[in-house]
């Protein structure tokens, strides 16, 4: 094999690795939104802002108490769960119950919530860019592959790899939770048919609290995992809300395994597109796939979501 071919292979390998690792994080962001979509039938447009809140919690835990971002997951997860439950209980449910309010207005409420959160962050934390300078931020694991007499050197970013693994564990736990526990079954029942679930004696209101709490906790975990590799500022949420939205559509509305697939597809599309087509349109690739999926596969990549 010639060195040119090896170089091309190395580039392709690196691009695929980057895409999949990034896709893992995207999946985690999409999971929360898809879960909420499945049960409440609304798109949570404050999703990115919830992630921003989690990123600040992680940042302050690290800055003030020297808590490692991965350890702070133990704080972030329950805190974000509580935040999600209160949002559902005190903001969304009252709007849902008012007859005069159209159901779409819950979505508008989440937009407002997002604005309030990002502006509160601006007020209290200022517009400064911050980062969590962990010692392993640019730690890399190299993997040298011998192929046909040529060496292909692939690099795995340590924080991305850890984030991918934790995202995988969280995703798997969510599946088991939904499939095997009573609460999980109740969530699935409510998602399928809320009225029937209520007739079977399920406290659907309580289920919506838990669902929103879980959704917030999942995206919060993604925020904590993102902190060591990215940076944060009050308005960081917006782009991630739209990414989560794209992932949810790719996976099929409310389809949990679909959301995982959607995240991986988005990560791969961004990294492949940026190298082989054009870096400037990186964000466009996700949206192009988004439109194509809407036209040709309106029920999502797995064809199981709601059209």
């Amino acid at each position: 094999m010639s060195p040119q071919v090896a170089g091309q292979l190395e580039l392709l390998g690196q691009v695929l690795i980057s895409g999949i690792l990034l896709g893992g994080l995207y999946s985690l962001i999409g999971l929360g939104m898809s879960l909420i979509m499945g049960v409440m039938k609304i798109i949570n447009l404050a999703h990115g802002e919830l992630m921003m809140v989690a990123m600040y919690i992680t940042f302050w835990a690290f800055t003030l108490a020297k808590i490692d971002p991965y350890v702070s997951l133990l704080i972030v997860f329950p805190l974000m769960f509580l935040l999600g439950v209160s949002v559902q209980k005190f903001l969304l449910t009252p709007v849902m119950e008012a007859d005069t309010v159209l159901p779409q207005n819950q979505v508008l409420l989440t937009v407002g919530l997002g604005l309030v959160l990002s502006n509160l962050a601006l007020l209290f934390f200022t517009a400064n860019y911050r980062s969590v300078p962990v010692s392993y931020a640019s730690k890399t694991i190299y993997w040298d592959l011998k192929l046909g007499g040529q060496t292909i050197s692939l690099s795995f970013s340590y924080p991305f790899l850890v984030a991918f693994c934790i995202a995988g564990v969280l995703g798997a736990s969510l599946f088991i939770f939904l499939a095997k526990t009573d609460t999980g079954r109740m969530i699935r029942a409510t998602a399928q048919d809320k009225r029937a679930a209520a007739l079977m004696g399920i406290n659907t209101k309580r289920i919506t609290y838990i669902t929103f709490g879980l959704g917030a906790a999942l995206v919060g975990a993604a925020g904590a995992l993102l902190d060591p590799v990215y940076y944060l500022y009050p308005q960081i949420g917006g782009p991630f809300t739209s990414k989560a939205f794209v992932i949810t559509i790719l996976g099929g509305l409310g389809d949990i395994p679909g959301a995982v697939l959607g995240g991986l597809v988005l990560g791969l599309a961004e990294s492949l597109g940026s190298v082989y087509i054009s870096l400037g349109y990186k964000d466009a690739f996700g949206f192009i796939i988004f439109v194509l999926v809407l036209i040709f596969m309106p029920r999502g990549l797995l064809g199981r979501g709601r059209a």
Partner: protein
Amino acid sequence: MAKPRFMQLVTLALLVGGMSASLLLAQGKTFKVGVPLPLTGAEAKFGEMEKQAYEMAVNEINAKGGVKGTNLVLDIQDSGGKPETATAIVEKFITIDKYPIVVGEYSSQCSYAVAGVAEKYKVPYLVVTGAADKITQQGWKNVYRLNPPASLYNMGVFSFFENVAKPKTIAILYENTDFGTSTSKAMKEYCDAHGVNVVLFEGYQAGGVDFKPILQKVKSLRPDVVYMVSYLMDASLLMRQSKELDINPQIFIGGGAGHTLPEFLQNAAEASEYCMSATLWTPQAKYPGAKEFFDNFKKKFDKEPDYHGAEAYAAAYVLADTLKRAKSFTADDIRTALSETNMMTAFGPVKFVSWGKFTNQNRMDTLVLQVINKKFETVWPKEGASAKYVFPAPHWRDRK
């Protein structure tokens, strides 16, 4: 029922009278200037720094008696970094508030939008940080620019190339905004004209999480110089990920903005070491008041200003100087006075000249800085350097 009505009338009269009296008083003593700035949105950090610098300068000016016995007041409004909002704010400044001059904005996009409005209403506008070449290339008579245009940001880097680096190949990565495009185009034109082979010329969208795919491509091309233009925190991600991928050009050079932020040092940490950047200003620059501005700002706001802060600070002084020389506070007289500006500021000399396609454009030398021992040092031009440049930069794996 006559009594309450009478009392109401008295109250009303007092209110109206008091308000108009205070208005009159205010008009007699203050002069208001409209300043649109991004105080929210992704560019809020810069807007905030500039706001603080403007206010610091205006407080100093007013403490020394203001302008012709008049206190300067800045009416700073948040544009959110959106050109359409900036346009609306400036329309209001000019048509409703009747301000005879507009100063400020941050990004090239917004400055360009504001410049169009100012030209339409024939009100002078002083551009402070927007750098895209086109802003002062439209033949607009009311648009003056304090900062050099983006294509000149690299003058210091070019002279470093000719005298020291002499690169044969270069990879150029830039944020696909007005500023990034102008700066990197100027770099590409220079390289094409001077026999430097541009092996990669690629624009990117700001705010990416993972630049490794494209950096891997850079690595496979083995350029002598990697040149990057980024506004914000992308600068530190690019450097961190270059270190991860073990990319070893002779030198990394940034095109200003993101690579000159104090946050760059914190966020990129050891990955920022030996990275150079074009810059317009450093506190080590040999301009009167430069160091004082830096020290006072740091003391007052507990953070370091970069060249954007210095630009805003100088702009307030240019404004005061112009108003002092203006025959009256009307748009026409202020424009005449602006054209005759010839002064020294903490940011450097300011004089609006026209050459080539440019009109009313300030021209000044630009510098090169390098991160040495986790600090920004001015390394080029040699006269006025605060430290000796390190070139070529050692390979990542060879560093301690």
